[in-house]
């Protein structure tokens, strides 16, 4: 036998032996570091929107397999929840991929052009910071992995404190800001830009209540060429992806190459989707993120955003209590005719026609420019510059067809900005985190819980016990079992 008889490598797959050998390899590795954004975006609404007063769920008594999702909404979730574990895993997959790139970049034996290296380092660090920011807000202080794991012993770090994680996030975003390219508006690729880094770093400072540090960053974003679409709904149209109002969004495309999104199929009622999406498909995983009466009541009269955000699906129940949808109608001034069952759904991510079942190209927004304007307004108001805040706030209100706000009392302006964020950013996964960030989660959601329990007989008395311990989610049970150095967050 030949000497290499026992040296076999997979022929159908790349392996570490033949990768990380060129600039292109590293650029492909950076692409791979974006992919986990989708793992998080696909399920984040259960934790970030459904837990808030914006969304509930369409109770499905025929299939209780979604109980874990419901428990997130009802504050009955525990450390074995599948969604919280998936998000945790998704964030760490992203972190691991960024760590691999940064570590292996140190060891390259070929020459890489400076411009390429800057862009690779910048995007990679921004993504790592983004994933850690997602983790720290949802799980508190987590293990701080900053290097590639190559063997099991490196996989069992203890938790760092939230402060340590935030320090790393700020350091990474600061590095990224110096390295990544400025946005090339009007049309972007979907990659990390200076606009994204400045916005998210400002968001980090706001979360730490360091509003003064956020202001210059946000102001820099206003000079990068971003602007609002004339119509609110245009911001969500597929033809306007990554365009002038978009700071950062998670990318999808339809087709059979595995890059599609399915958001709308999670948000519409279960049953055949022919009369909703135009494609006959038996949706068994819908009915989530159901707009609440509480949110509907929060819209000011004539707010143009209502029709763009929420729609109505009419239908009936058949003898088997299966919902049979008949058509979609506008929510504006809607009253259900007798004999018709009306269900709400999120319209932001609904842009037919579709070509394939359970397969859409809808992106998921992370930051839009209107959010930057509202963040800036909030920071100015919190730092005693309420008058300066108004123009930014009113840009958003004006587009929505609402009268400008004139209040300059910070205490009065604060809830007005918060309310504006709730409406403008509804179903974009900001509501729950905003409530926690602004210390409103306990009063708002306790009151909301009382109403909701009265409305739905199936909710247990123990539900909606909103305490400070519930501001973060538990570390997944699996992690605790596999890493004895971890300690569960109090209250779980």
């Amino acid at each position, binding site marked *: 036998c030949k000497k290499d*008889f026992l040296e076999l490598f997979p022929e159908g797959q790349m392996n570490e032996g033949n990768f990380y050998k060129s600039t292109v390899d590293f650029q492909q590795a950076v692409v791979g570091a974006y992919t986990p954004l989708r793992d998080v975006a696909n399920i984040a609404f259960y934790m970030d929107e459904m837990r808030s007063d914006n969304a509930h769920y369409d109770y499905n008594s025929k299939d209780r397999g979604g109980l874990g999702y419901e428990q997130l909404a009802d504050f009955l979730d525990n450390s074995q929840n599948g969604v919280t574990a998936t998000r945790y895993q998704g964030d760490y997959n992203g972190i691991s991929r960024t760590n691999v790139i940064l570590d292996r970049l140190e060891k390259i034996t070929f020459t890489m052009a400076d411009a390429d290296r800057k862009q690779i380092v910048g995007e990679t660090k921004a993504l790592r910071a983004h994933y850690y920011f997602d983790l720290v807000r949802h799980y508190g202080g987590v293990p701080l992995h900053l290097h590639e794991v190559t063997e099991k012993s490196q996989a069992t770090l203890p938790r760092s404190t939230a402060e340590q994680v935030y320090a790393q996030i700020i350091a990474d975003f600061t590095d990224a800001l110096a390295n990544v390219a400025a946005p090339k508006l009007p049309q972007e690729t979907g990659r990390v830009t200076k606009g994204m880094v400045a916005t998210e770093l400002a968001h980090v400072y706001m979360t730490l209540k360091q509003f003064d540090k956020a202001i210059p960053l946000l102001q820099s974003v206003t000079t990068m060429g971003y602007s609002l679409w004339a119509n609110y709904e245009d911001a969500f149209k597929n033809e306007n992806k990554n365009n002038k109002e978009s700071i950062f969004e998670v990318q999808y495309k339809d087709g059979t190459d595995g890059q599609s999104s399915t958001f709308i199929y999670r948000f519409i009622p279960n049953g055949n989707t022919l009369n909703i999406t135009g494609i*006959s498909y038996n949706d068994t995983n819908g009915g989530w993120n159901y707009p609440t009466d509480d949110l509907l009541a929060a819209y000011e009269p004539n707010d143009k955003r209502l029709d763009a955000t929420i729609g109505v699906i009419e239908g009936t129940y058949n003898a088997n209590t299966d919902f049979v949808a008949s058509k979609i109608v506008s929510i504006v001034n809607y009253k259900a005719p007798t004999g018709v069952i009306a269900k709400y759904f999120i319209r932001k991510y609904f842009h037919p026609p579709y070509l394939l079942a359970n397969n859409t190209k809808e992106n998921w927004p992370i930051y839009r420019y209107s959010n930057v304007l509202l963040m800036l307004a909030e920071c100015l108001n919190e730092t005693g510059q309420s008058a300066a805040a108004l123009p930014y706030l009113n840009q958003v209100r004006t587009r929505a067809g609402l009268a400008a706000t004139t209040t300059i009392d910070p205490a009065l302006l604060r809830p007005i900005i918060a309310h504006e964020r709730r409406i403008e950013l509804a179903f974009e996964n900001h509501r729950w985190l905003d409530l926690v960030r602004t210390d409103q989660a306990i009063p708002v959601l306790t009151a909301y819980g009382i109403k909701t329990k009265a409305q739905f007989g199936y909710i247990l008395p123990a539900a909606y016990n909103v305490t400070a311990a519930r501001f973060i989610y538990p570390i997944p049970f699996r992690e605790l079992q596999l890493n004895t150095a971890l300690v569960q967050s109090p209250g779980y």
Partner: protein
Amino acid sequence: QQSMKITGKVTSSEDRTGLPGVSVKVKGTQVGTVTDGAGAYTLTAAKGNVLTFSYVGYDLYEATVGESSTVNVSLKSKSADLQEVVVVSYGSSRQRDITGAVTKVNAEDLQNLPAAEIGQKLTGRVPGLQVNQASGRPGQGMTFRVRGAASLGSGNQPLIVVDGQPITGDVNLINPDDIESFSVLKDAASTALYGSRAANGVILITTKQAKSGRSTINFNTYYGTQTVLQRGRPDIMNANEFATFMKGYYEDRIKYENWKNPVTGLAEVPADYQNPAQYGEGTDWYNELLRTAPIQNYNLNISSGTDKVLSSNSLTYFKQDGVLRNTGMQRFSFRSNNQYTPSSKVKFGFNIAPTYQIDNNTRGNLDGNRQILVGGEISSPLIPARNADGSYPTRTGSYGMFALPNFLQQLDLMKNKQNSLRILANAFGEIELLKDLRFRTTINTDLGAIDQNSFNSSNYGTAGAPGPSIPSAVSNSNNYTSWLSENILTYKLTKGDHNFDFLAGYSAQKYNRNFRTINGSVFPNDNIPWIAGAATTTGTTNNTAWDIASMFGRINYDYKGKYLISANIRRDGSSRFGKNSKYGTFPSISAGWIISEESFFPKSDNFSFLKIRGGYGKTGNNNIGDYTQTSLVGQTNYVFSSALAQGLSITSLGNPDLTWETSKQTDIGLEMNFFKNRINVTYDYYNKLTNGMLYLISIPYASGYSSIRYNVGEFKMWGHELSINSTNLTGEVKWNTGFNISFNDNKVLSLQDNTPIGGTATYNDYNRTAVGRRIGELFGYVFDGVYKNQQEFDSQPKHATSAVGTARMKDINGDGKIDQNDKTFLGNPNPKFLFGLNNDIRYKNFDFSISVSGQVGNKIMNTNLQNFQNLDGIFNIEKSMMNRWRSPENPGNGQVPRTLSNTTELYRFGNSNWVFSGDYLTIRNISAGYTFTSVPKYFKSARIYLAVNQAYVFTKYPGQNPEVNDSRDNQTTAGQDNGSYPVPRTISIGANINF
């Protein structure tokens, strides 16, 4: 002394037919002959000469020539004979000389068993070999385990070696009719010559060869019918009971939850359930899915042997229809074994055995959680299986139930066919270089081509996603080649009382498999089941390979035939392991002492033989899949500018230090014969320490990966094996009994970081392997009744979702609340002992046999109870669920919780209610035969028999099959019953005809 011509006939004492090819010799001379086709012989001898009659498989017989010139002899076939030749690693040996734990089984003894798989024949025959029928799927049911749970997740199946060739594909493609004998090698001393693949034991299969001087034509056939017994069928509600339950369910929802029917807007029980009395038994879905099914086999063997050429050819057709409708398998097999001996110094052989198997739907989603069989069981008994016009109702849920398709329709519509072609072939040449120095070279190939095509029509549906659906098709195919080259030198040396046997060998094996998957979807209609008709087609191809290169050697030594020593060594290199640890060395040594040969041992017929033997050795396991030593870079594509962007990332973490799992095993054995060898007793004790067991261990998600292949921990396994074979009667009535029993146990001594394996997920994670315990113990909550009233509720530990009347689990960790930290060990899925008892009785031309086997001490977790005890009003469920809590005044039997929304999940988690004793005793086979001795011309003999297989199962396990183990080979998830394919009783009639 006057020489005279002696004539005579040699017959078999069993069936009185003439035995051709028997060697007849005048003792002490060169004079000899062999019998002809009818068993007749002629030779010249003198009065007083002793004639010896020898024939393979029969006792040596000696007759003294008297006055008569006719010497007729009847030869007795051997049973448990010390002279019997047993096939061992790279050779054969007399039973008395073997120093390891080896059990031989002659296939002849098993011919009454109608079986698709060789495993069905071996059940209960070999101490220490656990063969379970884990599933009734035709051709796929059997699992083997030598000496208990040997491995974690890298397979427990022993290495199967057919005529010296370690095979790589499916063992069940080997035709049971072609097998002459099995040798089961259990201890390290016996298996170490197979080195890195020997940790789970080795089964050597010898196929039928022609005998010199004997030409035979045999035809064997049987035909049987298979039926599923009533015992063990699911105890679920009939229509009346189910409607009554559902009526109460909605009454409670109205009472406790303010429920209103969304269809009518009224707070009243839905119409389906308002009047349960109108329903009778309703539909028994389980029964609808089953049928009585035939099984049949036809085997023709033609063999002929001369001094120079031995040739055996056989042709077999086997067909087993499944007891689940629309399922079944067929197998066509051919085997040709040929050996040429042009001179006494040279020998060549060519063997080829093609097999073609057609699996019709037996590879489909028939069983398992909410697949067809269980799906049918949870369907509403209120819905008829068929409409009055013969069509299928397409949904089988009543009001408010889970979305269920008609599983009878799904079964009848199923189109999933797998065609497998397998060719085993080998050629060898053997030459005597010098006296007693022989060189043998062999080249073996194992070729397989598997093609599976499935089509889901527009009526296809599954639980949760009933049809109609968009038609789709999948085509999976793969072909593999495995070639093995072996070169072996052997030398025999005898110096006085010292006998030496040397063996040295070199082998290289290469395995390569290409595989393809093509998916087709969006068919215009149901008329074209091939992907050619699909609008959308995607496909991929890939390949995998492994190599192994080995050197091995053996020395056998005996002194005066009573002191025996055997030493083996093998060195293997494998492509599967990391750079730093490619090679492993596996030595073993064993010794035997035949005490009964010693002069001090009292010569007595009552205690006729005594041997003690002991062995120690190291073996390995390399069953870890290919390429796990390397971190793999997988496609992680993304989208930029609305177009696909190629992304690549490390998606699986490799382990460059990965190496063999090694076992060190000690075996001590005792062999005793009593009463002129009529009773034969073998006892073995073994103790095995396995280090660095190969396992895909979970690691924290925080690493960016979910698992890594690792050499984890240390495990101890030990056990006792006893077998007794007895010739009870030898006269007119002949009666033989074989009994064996084996005790196996294991303990986890250490694990990586002592992190337990398994038991972390909410659902479908029902076993845990932890330090200080046995491998794969069942794991979950301990059910403790229900909170019968407010006072019980207030005073006892609660879960976050608990309410009065809901399930109470034991607060195992005593922290005052019930959560995932209260899961605990619920039982050992491995039996404490297993046993087999076989009896054969012959009287004149009648024969009768009965074989029984069983096991004791294992626990089974019926994971289907997550469906049958689901209290959400969405499935048909167990009758016992009627005794549920309704109110403090009507608390039921205190063992079944209420149906209150959002409280029922805890009761659906794996818990002690699902765990049952798996003890069983099964009457495997009863058969009775009659042999016709006066047969028409051209026939030599004919036997017909009647057999009942799986005649009766004695067990307390309420499920269908106490041998169930749905995770099959994965010991870390053992002991689960997901509702697998039922094992039928088979009644068959068969014939063995010799021409």
